[in-house]
């Protein structure tokens, strides 16, 4: 057995192996962002070239995200739906499923919550809030169940079905907020306020309790995946469906269950936004959360803690962007954050290339160095 020093070294090595790629991706994104900023300066005429502008912009971004209580609350608030959405994508990844439908599940969850929230806007918060949250989770779960079910019975690929369902969800929202849920007194399509179903503010000016829900979800998903037999089934089906079948698991059932759970998490993300932030719904509600969630899940490598960290990073960029725009006199628009996020995502997807350029070892390579190969008999050390 290895001594504790060896274990510590091995742990440090594993942590680095897991963290190196996201870390390098972030640095790369900041670097490319700086190039974009400098290039944009050249294009804009009649202004002195300022080599320090990227630093000014990043400093403002940082300050807007973490410089004080309110920025931090904003960061957490922006991260909350990304954590839940990231879990929805990451959990599905674990089962070998690519849930591109987090966006649709997110919208349906928000719709479920706003429907129940508006209906119970004058009820006691102790009834209204749980009921509205549950409605969001159920609606999201139902929207996740559909592609899971289709895959289980007919093999329809979830990437195709979830993309299609995203369009359907967007249309359902547009119909609902301009039809049955439309508030007649307002000229534009908008729902009524959720009233007492709104999530209470627990910190700062607008730090609602959705963050606690997201935190609980991180632990719940981690526990499910790694401490329960269900989670073992999900991971086994994802890693090797044939072995899962031999082990007596039922891959089809696991697929349906996982997609429903993923939908539930994405639906919960929608619920926290509608009940915690907007308090009502319009047709242009949260158009990117479900897609950012995919990037979050990739950056977090489908591990619950990793997803939480990745969501915080993306949330911080979202929260800091306005201040960056203000402090650079709108020279740098808030959309620079999209460039950063997209670059991170690109370097994650093209990870083989990034690994080669920066000579990063994969997780696998770090373990390959251990001497496990040896003759089957006798007691001598193995030789490769």
């Amino acid at each position: 057995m290895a001594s504790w020093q060896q274990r510590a070294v091995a742990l440090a090595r594993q942590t680095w192996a897991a963290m190196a790629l996201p870390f390098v991706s972030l640095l790369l994104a900041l670097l490319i962002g700086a190039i974009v900023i400098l290039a944009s300066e050249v294009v804009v005429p009649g202004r002195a070239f300022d080599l320090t502008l990227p630093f000014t912009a990043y400093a403002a971004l940082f300050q807007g995200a973490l410089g004080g209580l309110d920025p931090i609350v904003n960061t957490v608030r922006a991260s909350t739906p990304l954590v839940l959405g990231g879990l929805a994508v990451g959990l599905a990844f674990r089962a070998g499923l690519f849930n591109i439908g987090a966006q649709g599940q997110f919208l349906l969850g928000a719709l479920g919550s706003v429907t129940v929230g508006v209906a119970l806007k004058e009820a006691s918060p102790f009834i209204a809030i749980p009921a509205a949250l549950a409605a969001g989770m159920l609606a999201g779960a139902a929207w996740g169940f559909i592609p899971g079910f289709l895959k289980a019975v007919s093999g329809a690929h979830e990437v195709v079905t979830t993309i299609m369902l995203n369009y359907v969800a967007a249309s359902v929202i547009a119909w609902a907020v301009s039809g049955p849920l439309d508030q007649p007194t307002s000229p534009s399509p908008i729902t009524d306020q959720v009233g007492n179903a709104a999530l209470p503010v627990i910190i700062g000016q607008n730090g609602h309790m959705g963050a606690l829900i997201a935190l609980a979800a991180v632990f719940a998903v981690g526990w499910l995946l790694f401490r329960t037999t269900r989670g073992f089934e999900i991971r086994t089906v994802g890693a090797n469906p044939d072995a899962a079948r031999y082990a007596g698991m039922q891959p089809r059932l696991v697929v349906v269950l996982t997609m429903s759970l993923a939908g539930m998490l994405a639906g919960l993300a929608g619920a926290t936004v509608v009940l915690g932030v907007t308090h009502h719904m319009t047709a242009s509600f949260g158009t990117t959360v479900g897609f950012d969630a995919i990037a979050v899940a990739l950056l977090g490598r489908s591990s619950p803690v990793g997803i939480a960290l990745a969501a915080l990073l993306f949330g911080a960029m979202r929260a800091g962007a306005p201040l960056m725009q203000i402090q650079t006199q709108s020279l740098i628009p808030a959309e620079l954050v999209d460039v950063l996020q997209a670059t991170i995502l690109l370097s994650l997807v093209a990870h083989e290339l990034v690994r080669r350029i920066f000579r990063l070892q994969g997780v696998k390579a770090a373990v390959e160095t251990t001497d496990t190969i040896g003759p089957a008999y006798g007691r001598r050390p193995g030789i490769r």
Partner: protein
Amino acid sequence: MTSGVQTVQAPALEMRGITKGYPGVLANDGIDLDVRPGEIHALLGENGAGKTTLMNILYGLAKPDAGEILLDGSSVEITSPQDAIRQRICMVHQHFMLVPVLSVSDNILLGEEPMAGPIFLDRAGAHRRIRDLAMSFGWEIDPEQRVGSLSVGWQQRVEILKALYRNARILVLDEPTAVLTPQETKEIFSVLRRLRAEGYAIIFISHKLYEVLEIADRITVIRRGKVVGSRTPAATNEEDLAEMMVGREVNLTVDRGASQPGDVVLQIEELRVKDDRGSEAVRGVNLEVRAGEIVGIAGVAGNGQDELVEAIVGLRRPSAGRIRLADHDLTSVGARQRHRLGVGFIPADRHRFGLVLSFPLSDNFILTDYYEAPYARGMIRDEAAIEARAVRGIRDFDVRTPSARVTCGTLSGGNQQKVIVAREFEGEQRLLVLDQPTRGLDVGSIEFIHRQAIAKRDVGTAILLVSAELDEVLELSDRIAVMYRGQIVSVRDGRTADKNEIGILMATGGSQVAGLSTSPVA
């Protein structure tokens, strides 16, 4: 190196003092190896002895820490497979590097497309060259045929053609016979002899001793990264070579006592099973396996063995017939229930059914029992019990691993197989289905698994052994059933069966002994 070999010709290839270290291991430690034109030089060694590393260095896939490679006496640097091919060194890999959906000619031309003009391929000319080349061996091959539809033996010929098409003069064959029937092996040997006569230098990698003795002009044994010695076939024998390989005396034949068959454990009646494409692969099989006996199924791969085995362990639903385990009807029972009734399974494709390579060893040890005590209480996993199970399995079956927490993918094939054996052999199994249990393993691991199987037999487990290695079937089985085109064509006593006769039954089904080959040979 021995210098007393008759040929005086200079070596076509010489590797001198090749040393290559990986963190913690010295994979090659000053290895010298040479091969002359018109010579078959066998490289013999166990899995992990360093054969693959040495060949990877030769093929430009690994960079040696020290040593040099000489071609016709002058030093060369080979840094990529392209370099190797340019130096006319070609490799026929153990797992064929062919694209199944492409045609024979496309596979051969891949990476070296002959052009007619700047844009278009010169297919017609290439087809002609390929056909001529094949015909020179008496092979009638259609360059347009898809490689995926060829038998394994023919795929190998395509690999060889590919090498020859590229003007190879040094051929490296990595365990070429691992997937072949005895007859196909004979055919490939005659090809190799011809290539030798034409002056090719051939390195033949294997761990099958009798084959090496039959085909090689010289045999070099390596162990733990070092050359142990070189012999000519005339000056050595199987026992001697095995001892050189392993470093101690090896029992090449398992000492199995007489079997004491008891009651019928597995009873298969009129079983019919379809394959993935829906055609009937098992066509009315009747078979019995008794407690305390090993029944071996011999057959050329693809004659319904896979489907039969999958039906027995519950991975494939039969279309007709019955499977009984003692007094239980298994026919419509799921894999988990069969496991609980005492059916263990060593799958042929251990990476597919046997293991989850990305999981730690511990999770693989409980793969089939994860849901019940002591590994789970309700829905909650008991990590301590799981770890304890793994530690016990690692100890009892001598799995070579730094801990139970490393992923299975980091273990060698032999150790991976031991994890499966440890999992499936534990407990009071009534039936063990062993499908190619020693495929790709080294002598030591094979010996270990054979002993375990005999031990299980002797405590009254019924064992069904399926193997493409006829020798393995002959060595272990108390009874041998020959499977041909989905049917059991003959059942023989395992002790008196004749290897040649079984080989012919495998190839022809025993109807008429017309030709030995199952493939068209002109």
